[in-house]
């Protein structure tokens, strides 16, 4: 077996890498939270009340209540994606922070684990920010069920950080990430039931959407906010975790080849 394909060797040495990123974030925490919050908030409130006023009901509930779960999902997806793509690329390629860390007793596996857990943590932070608005506006049916969105935000973050790290691993420059947003993230947001039920789409597109991770995130989040236990919880969790784990491993192999030659 090729050496760079070996499975990840995980250790607790990733913690200082996570702390490093947290320390940078803390310096800019307020603008960062506002930035995370502003965009999804505007969409949720603008579309929710503006467009929602024209719609009788969507899937049996007011449009803004329908949109709330979608907003949690796509904002946590974006949060982790931006973190591993732009900030991760800065640390890997521009600032050479990873190379500096590799001279200490850490491996690339530790560095990447620090990055993915940090990106998941950032998703958790933006998930919490959106959730607090949702709680404030009363856009939930059962408070205790809505609490499940907290671990879900972490899982969505992990999932998309894993996939995103593949892009980081192969990217020659920041411009490259535009393809990922245009070809993957934006279509996914439109196909996976964030803004409208995926069943509205032509059958083929609906079938494709069933394979996309964001669909599984939405299928978990929406019932939880509407006061029901989601169906097929285990399968949805497995898909999200699977995308994250497989993405992480592919990315790790690619970064090993990129940096450790």
């Amino acid at each position: 077996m090729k050496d760079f394909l070996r499975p990840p060797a995980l250790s607790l040495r990733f913690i200082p890498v996570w702390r490093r990123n947290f320390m940078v974030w803390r310096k800019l925490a307020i603008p960062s939270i506002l930035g995370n919050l502003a965009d999804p908030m505007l969409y949720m409130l603008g579309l929710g009340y503006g467009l929602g006023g024209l719609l009788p009901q969507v899937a049996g509930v007011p449009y803004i209540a329908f949109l709330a779960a979608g907003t949690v999902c796509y904002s946590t997806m974006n949060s982790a994606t931006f973190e591993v793509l732009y900030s991760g690329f800065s640390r890997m390629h521009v600032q050479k922070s990873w190379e500096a860390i590799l001279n200490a007793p850490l491996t690339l596996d530790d560095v990447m684990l620090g990055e993915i857990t940090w990106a998941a943590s950032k998703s958790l932070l933006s998930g919490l920010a959106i959730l607090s608005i949702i709680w404030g506006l009363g856009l939930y049916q059962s408070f205790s069920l809505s609490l499940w969105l907290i671990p879900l935000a972490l899982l969505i973050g992990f999932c998309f950080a894993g996939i995103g790290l593949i892009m980081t691993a192969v990217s020659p420059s920041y411009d490259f990430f535009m393809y990922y947003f245009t070809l993957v993230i934006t279509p996914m947001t439109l196909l996976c039931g964030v803004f409208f039920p995926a069943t509205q789409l032509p059958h083929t597109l609906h079938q494709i959407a069933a394979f996309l991770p964001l669909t599984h995130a939405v299928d978990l989040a929406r019932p939880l906010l509407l006061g029901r236990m989601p169906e097929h919880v285990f399968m949805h969790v497995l898909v999200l975790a699977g995308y994250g784990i497989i993405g992480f491993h592919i990315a790790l192999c690619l970064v090993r080849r990129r940096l450790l030659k």
Partner: protein
Amino acid sequence: MPALSAKQLRKSYGQHEVVAGVDLTIQRGECFGLLGPNGAGKTTTLRLLLGLIEPDAGEITLLGHAVPQEARQARLRVGVVPQMDNLDPDFTVEENLMVYGRYFGLSDNAIKQRIPELLKFAGLVGRADSRIQALSGGMKRRLTLARALVNDPDLIFLDEPTTGLDPQARHLIWQGLRGLITQGKTVLLTTHFMEEAERLCDRLIIMDNGKLIACGSPRELVDQHIEPSVVELYGDTAHSWAERFGTSLCERTEIAGETLFCYTHDSEALINTLRSQSTLRYLHRPANLEDVFLKLTGRDMRE
């Protein structure tokens, strides 16, 4: 037990063998130089020795640990100054030391206690809260050196530590390195400044095309490979002078552009001849490591 030993180290990329059977042993407390032109395989050798990349063949023992298998344990006791500064631009001077110390598993308290000493070593007392962007090139290099000492390492790797620095900054780095050697630290240094190697290194090796081509103390290498006296002649008539007198008045000549290098054991006759003419400018000096380096690796440009 030596601080570092490597036997028959090999590493290829495609058809190109970058490290082609390197043996080296570094004793504890020694300052060891790894010299060679660009592309000789110095940095690849360092990365192999640190366990960052796996050799195709060969054995490495770093501070008693087999590398790359136990590279993590070995690197706990090692400090590294990379060729390019990679200080963390998101942090201040002090935060850089703090964050880097944590990678070694040191507690925040232990690092905090060490920071004043490191700042003093780097000549950055009073700059603890400066941003990295506000530091000069020399300051950044000194901070990178201080960062490499955060875990109080036994062995320090330095990859071209003074490249791109002005003479003042370079002397400050040398002073710092001599201090470390006096403290008993083992130092492995790559450089292509012969003066640096001559000043600092107890022993050194010269690499070219992935192979060792010479090994010894700077003095030994000069004695072994080069005649003790060098006369450099400048001017457009140097060539014709070389044809007339070169072979009779010195043992060996080399031409580089408009300069003629005459190597000899006895320079008296040569100097007397030169004094009696007025068109050629000349410089008479003892042979040094650079002469050895150029003799062994040639005068061609390396890319």
